């Protein structure tokens, strides 16, 4: 099977430029610099590359939104704020193959006409940030960044900007605010970043994995990349599997690999031979799936048809014995903590749900609590600027919808129906 990203990740010094170049690194950049920028964007469109940050917006289309003619500078921002619970794929790229990202950045910036790129990396990623800095330094020294890259006349500067620990700075406009030195809070859209982004200038924001896929697309063509995955979700995916499996980790597999086989074959099945109860297929924000719903291809369309979302492809595996009330309570604590506080429904709704769930879990739940949560969800849905509100609503609605008996039991009996496993 063809690997786009992780082919050489087993080599410890692949993160250094010499080894990277030895294995064909930066040849895509050389190729790209000889290409017409429209041609590059066309290849990315052909590749059916979907944004890897969670929303899955077609990358080529997003690039196309960047204005061709503007009197302002243009920026590329790489979203390396990877903070969706259950997601740890970008970290792997930055630790094992930072030059993939840098090469992708150079090509992307060239394609959209940006001369400055910010890599916004989550504050807790101390080592990845150091590795990136080293790699960027190397790239400058070898002439892959800086002035007149490879004699093409194209200039590009790349800066690593470390975040300060806010989930919301993974939302692209929150990230832009943060880069500008403001408190990380999403902006009203429109205008979208492609019109008014960093410092008021047109800005392209892409996820680390999205950008790291670019060198392959340029090298082998958009069609070759798309052929690796499905028609509408091209290429391979980094599936991050966590929870109660025998071999948790990041697996690069074709988009559309069967979700069940990712868990049972690639990840070695459920820990201690337990029975599967549920799977969260794309980071904690997406609707949970029951064990009998997971025999589906793990690409954006198929997972959506199955009633959930592929999101960041961070697969969280939940066996029998894990109390769903406790799990949802943990998830809601996260969203209540991470709501930026700008929009009223999210600011107050997440905390309200956290309180109710905590009460139920403690054995202080009362009749009507679930209806209340669902009504709060209804009032939060579609009423806010960014998607954090829905990110809290989707697990709440799906957990209660699919595991209602556990919640009812908890309220009635004041203990877990199925909770011998500690989480």
């Amino acid at each position, binding site marked *: 099977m063809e690997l786009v990203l992780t082919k050489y990740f087993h080599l410890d010094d692949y993160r250094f430029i010499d080894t990277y170049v030895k294995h064909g690194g930066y040849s895509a950049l050389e190729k790209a610099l000889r290409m017409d920028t429209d041609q590059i964007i066309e290849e990315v469109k052909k590749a059916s590359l979907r944004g890897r940050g969670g929303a899955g917006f077609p990358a080529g289309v997003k690039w196309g939104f960047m204005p061709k003619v503007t009197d302002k500078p243009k920026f590329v921002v790489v979203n390396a704020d990877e903070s969706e619970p259950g997601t740890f794929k970008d970290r792997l790229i930055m630790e094992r193959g930072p030059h993939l990202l840098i090469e992708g950045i150079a090509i992307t910036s060239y394609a959209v006409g940006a001369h400055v790129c910010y890599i916004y990396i989550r504050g807790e990623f101390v080592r990845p940030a150091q590795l990136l800095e080293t790699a960027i330094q190397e790239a400058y020294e070898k002439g892959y960044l800086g002035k007149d890259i490879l004699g093409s006349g194209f200039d590009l500067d790349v800066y690593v900007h470390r975040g300060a620990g806010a989930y919301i700075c993974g939302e692209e406009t929150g990230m832009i605010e943060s880069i500008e030195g403001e408190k990380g809070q999403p902006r009203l859209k429109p205008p979208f970043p492609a019109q008014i982004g960093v410092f008021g200038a047109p800005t392209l924001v892409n996820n680390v994995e999205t950008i790291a896929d670019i060198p392959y697309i340029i090298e082998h063509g958009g069609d070759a990349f798309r052929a690796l995955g499905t028609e509408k979700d091209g290429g391979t995916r980094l599936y991050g599997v966590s929870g109660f499996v025998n071999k948790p980790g990041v697996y690069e597999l074709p988009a559309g690999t069967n979700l069940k086989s990712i868990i049972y074959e690639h990840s070695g099945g459920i820990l201690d031979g337990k029975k599967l109860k549920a799977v969260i297929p794309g980071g904690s924000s997406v609707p949970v799936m029951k064990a009998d719903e997971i025999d589906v291809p793990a690409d954006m369309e198929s997972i959506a048809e199955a009633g959930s979302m592929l999101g960041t492809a961070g697969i969280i595996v939940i066996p029998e014995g894990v109390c769903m009330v406790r799990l949802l309570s943990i998830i809601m604590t996260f969203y209540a903590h991470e709501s930026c506080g*700008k929009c*009223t*429904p999210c600011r107050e709704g997440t905390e309200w749900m956290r*309180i109710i769930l905590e009460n139920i879990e403690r054995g202080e739940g009362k009749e009507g609590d679930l209806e209340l949560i669902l009504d709060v969800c209804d*009032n*939060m849905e579609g009423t806010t600027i960014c998607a954090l509100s829905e990110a809290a609503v989707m697990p709440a609605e799906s957990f209660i919808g699919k595991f209602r008996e556990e919640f009812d039991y908890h309220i009635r009996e004041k203990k877990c129906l199925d909770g011998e496993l500690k989480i």
Partner: protein
Amino acid sequence: MPKVTLNGKELEVEPGTTIIEAGDRLGIHIPRFCYHPHLSIDGNCRMCLVKIEGVQKLLPACATYVDHDMVVRTDTDAVKKAVKGVLEFLLVHHPIDCPICDQSGECYLQDYYVQFGLYKSRFPLKNKIHKVKVKDVGGDIVLDAERCVLCTRCMRFLREVTGTDELNIFGRGSHSEIDIYKDQPLRNRYTCNLADICPVGALTSKDFRFQCRVWYLKEGKSICTGCATGCNVFVHYHGGKVWRMKPRFNEHVNGPWMCDIGRFSYTAANDDRIEKPRSLEGEKSVVIDWDAAFYTANLKIGEVKRDFGAGAIAVIASPRSSNEELYLTKKLAFEVIGTPNLAFTPAVVADDYSDEILVSKDKTPNSRGAVELRIGPQDGGLDLAGILDAARQGKVKLLIVMGCCLGDLDDDGAGRVVSAVEYSINIAPNESAVSQATSLVLPSASFVERGGTFTNEAGRVQRFYRMFLPRFRAREDIRILADLGRRLGADWDYKNEEAVFDDMARSEPFFAGLDYRVIGENGSEAGGR
């Protein structure tokens, strides 16, 4: 032109008009907290969500521009539920302390609860988050963060209007809390506007706190007398007292704001008033009635004219007087008394502060009017310095002072000048060093007890209105001047300030073409423009 159909009502608007603005024009109030027409759009409160035909998600009316043939509804079930939901969210941690909250009666939360809420609380009392209360954040403002809805109007005001940026939101999520930075209180002269724009009781005015329930207050239109900018204001009064002033929008003058200094100038209407006419008999001050006062004034003026000639009389006008009062003062001096000695006390700078926003260096409301009416000596007459010098030397035998000031003299100096004059008359609303030393004191009306016009420093003639009758035994200046003139033999038939204005517009070039009845809400630029 984009056209919107809002709840079935059609309106054409210029491009760049938001739905909430269109609603306001149509008289359809879309509920809001964070939206303020004179601040940037933030879209955080989510109270103004509306349904746009063809758009699945509800969108904020404050941040959505009217597009061609947009059909918008504010009354669908989905909108109603969303609005009610947002309101409930805003109230979950609110202390619901309306009975002791100053905002009560003019609080968006109260109004909207009655209009859109009316649900029972579903949030456990014990889980309410507690935040800072009764915190003096500087200026005139007290903060209660528990009542705050985090709309950021205050933050945007301090960023966009004063540029001082003192308030910010600290913390995140439901622990977000508005506050000043540590030990850095508000440091601008516009803090009261924060209490105005705060839609709830989070930022209240120290000056107004616990003074009067707002539903007792009546509202009148006026002009701030704090400086020459002439900010348009609402005066809130009750029981013959002024309780506060609020800015009244005038795009040509003050926009929607006013400064703190001007804001507190209302106290002149309440405090240190001269209550009754009085006469200084030796060392003793004796209360007299108005008839006796006019009789005495007439007698004294007549005596001085007979014994020393009209040139021994001097009149000092006040730039706190209205255009009409100044005009009549001038006529009284030149035409009735016949003295050439007329001057006015120019801008008295009690507080050196001025800025580029609203506060003028000139701390009086009508210096421009006095200049344009050429309040000054006639040929051979004495100017202000001349009058004061002559008074000190005992050459002025009778001095008439309008208002409370004498040039830039301090209390001591003013008192000495007045005392040096054989006989003096002071027409003023408030006690001062001048009134204390004056032989005959005539109490005049405060700025809310009389009407008229001021000319601001930009030359805009603006009306202020009488809200209630003069307190105590005070009388309107126009009436005092006209009565005095008639006693002295003038053939005056001025019934009110309007009649004076008409006369003035006929004879004073600066006011030519102005009509008292059409000056209107926003005033008129003088000089026929």
